[in-house]
């Protein structure tokens, strides 16, 4: 499927962003082993087409709410890779001042309302942001990312009803990677067709191949347009797969290798360039250049993070409350 937006330059941007996420996270895994990064680290490797396809279909006035698996979203949304890496290093120059770490990347400038380590915790926040926009007559919509597992939480139910009832401009983006930690979707939810679940609120829905960045982008453009025009929520299911374990603590013993291998054949970072090459829209030189750029950016980000300062312990009690005088 080809969309008008899918011109060559644009296709290259999508590919470039997927590569940036992939290289960034491969480096994160390495640095976790080297204990430069600590705490929980949830890799997005394999799911890049979702964040890239969705975020390229949104505008700067839109709000983004993400999960603890949000490095890719933060990066594509426009947070500097150095600020992301510094955050994971716990440095003061991190995008959350080193207070948040991997699961809590925030950025006011790009309306990135953060990673959230409570499964489903971002759902009502997103609906609330949309409510604020609606009441203030703002243009933007709010895109909320969450996983298949989150759909079993009561807060999903409450938020879907409120968004449908109050006609809030929320684009619900469910990244269905078929597992919630070690529990397969079919072992956690009796209704495995997530669109059927969402449609009951009622809400318009669409299911899309989350391994196909152009399909994700096209579906998001369409869904977002409906949210903007109708001022109603929309539920988008992105079927995808995580190639790595749930977190760095996960021995990943609950999935068969065959299943993982089958999905890896659909790796967007391989299939998309292959397709572009086949269509004569990407040369080996161009691909090498994109790869090189991503690697250079990662190297620079690590350098920045390494050099970044630690916050002095003396300011430990900062940012609990807003200082007098600040808005």
């Amino acid at each position, binding site marked *: 499927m080809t969309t008008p937006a899918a011109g060559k330059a644009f296709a290259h941007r999508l590919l470039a962003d997927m590569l940036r996420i992939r290289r960034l996270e491969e480096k994160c895994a390495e640095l976790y082993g080297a204990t430069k990064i600590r705490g929980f680290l949830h890799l997005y490797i394999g799911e890049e087409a979702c964040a890239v396809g969705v975020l390229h279909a949104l505008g700067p006035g839109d709000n983004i709410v993400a999960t603890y698996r949000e490095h890719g979203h933060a990066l594509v949304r426009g947070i500097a890779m150095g600020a992301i890496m510094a955050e994971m290093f716990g440095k003061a120059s991190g995008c959350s001042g080193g207070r948040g770490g991997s699961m809590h990347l925030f950025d006011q400038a790009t309306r990135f309302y953060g990673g959230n380590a409570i499964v489903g915790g971002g759902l009502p926040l997103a609906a*609330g942001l949309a409510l604020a926009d609606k009441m203030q007559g703002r243009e933007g919509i709010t895109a909320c990312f969450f996983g298949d597992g989150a759909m079993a939480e009561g807060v999903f139910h409450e938020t879907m009803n409120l968004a449908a009832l109050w006609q809030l401009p929320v684009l619900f983006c469910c990244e269905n990677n078929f597992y919630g930690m070690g529990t397969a979707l079919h072992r956690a939810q009796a209704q495995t067709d997530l669109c059927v679940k969402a449609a009951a609120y009622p809400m318009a829905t669409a299911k899309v191949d989350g391994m196909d960045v152009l399909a994700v982008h096209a579906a998001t453009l369409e869904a977002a347009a409906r949210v903007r025009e109708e001022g109603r929520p929309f539920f988008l299911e992105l079927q995808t797969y995580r190639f790595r374990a749930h977190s760095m603590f996960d021995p990943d013993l609950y999935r068969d290798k065959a299943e993982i291998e089958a999905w890896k054949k659909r790796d967007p970072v391989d299939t998309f360039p292959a397709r572009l090459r086949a269509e004569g829209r990407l040369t080996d030189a161009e691909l090498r250049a994109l790869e090189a750029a991503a690697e250079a950016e990662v190297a620079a980000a690590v350098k920045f993070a390494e050099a970044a300062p630690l916050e002095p312990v003396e300011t430990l009690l900062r940012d609990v409350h807003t200082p007098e005088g600040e808005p």
Partner: protein
Amino acid sequence: MKTSYREALRQALHEALSSDTRVFLMGEDVGRYGGAYAVSKGFYDEFGPERIRDTPLSELGFVGLGVGAALGGMRPIVEVMTVNFSLLALDQIVNAAAVLRHMSGGQFSVPVVVRMATGAGRQLAAQHSHSLENWYAHIPGIRVLAPATIGDARGMLAPALADPDPVVIFEHAQLYNLEGELPADWRCDIRSAAVRRPGSQVSVITYGGCLPKALQAAEMLAAEGIDAEVVDLRVLRPLDTEAIAASVGKTHRALVVDEGWKTGSLAAEVVARIVEDSFYDLDAPPRRLCSAEVPIPYARHLEEAALPQAETIAAAVREMLNA
């Protein structure tokens, strides 16, 4: 001007809604019904369904929406009908409202106000009679208020809304019908405790629904020649420890009265602060009078026996002074 606690809350809300278009009220039955405690009666017709939002029974969801709307530039007043139902919404208060500013390195403040009725005394039984103020007072990142007078009912909302960070307001269900004069100077801060009755022999330190009982006890004691000072904490987080120390420094004796269950109560925190700050001022060990360690029973005589009462407060003071 004679008025009631309910009417004072109502006036404060009316003023806030009239003076700032970013302010809106949301919660179960705050609109068409007029509020479970009739605090927002008439607002639905006056301000309309957009600003007086009846919510579904979805405490976690609509409190979370309030937090999100605050992030988005509004000044939501979220009414959780009672603290009992706030148990369902704690995740969004503790893991979102209270921590977003910190986790974002100071980028995002959450100017939300959450109001809820609290307390027992109306024979509503175990599930509807909680006093969990200390749970909230335990959490960094939120400010916790307990208006116990008509003046504070009128005055605390404005500064709470002006606070860029989350504020939780506890309205004791037995205070709504409290009648009295609205003081001319009802404007107040949300930082300090208040001495509601000056005294010299013992400090009775309390808050919320126990304040009228403590004042009543002080009157009974005065008749017996015992001069008790009554301190109203007003702000449960952060605690005004200076005011507590000042009172104890004067009376050298303290009784902390708290409707919460004794174990793990806010009263324990006040006692701990007293021994930390005023140990050598004490003529006797500080004492606590709290609710009995039992889910609040329905039967009136059992409920009364489970809660602090003016008589039991007075008795505890007598004991302390005769000991």
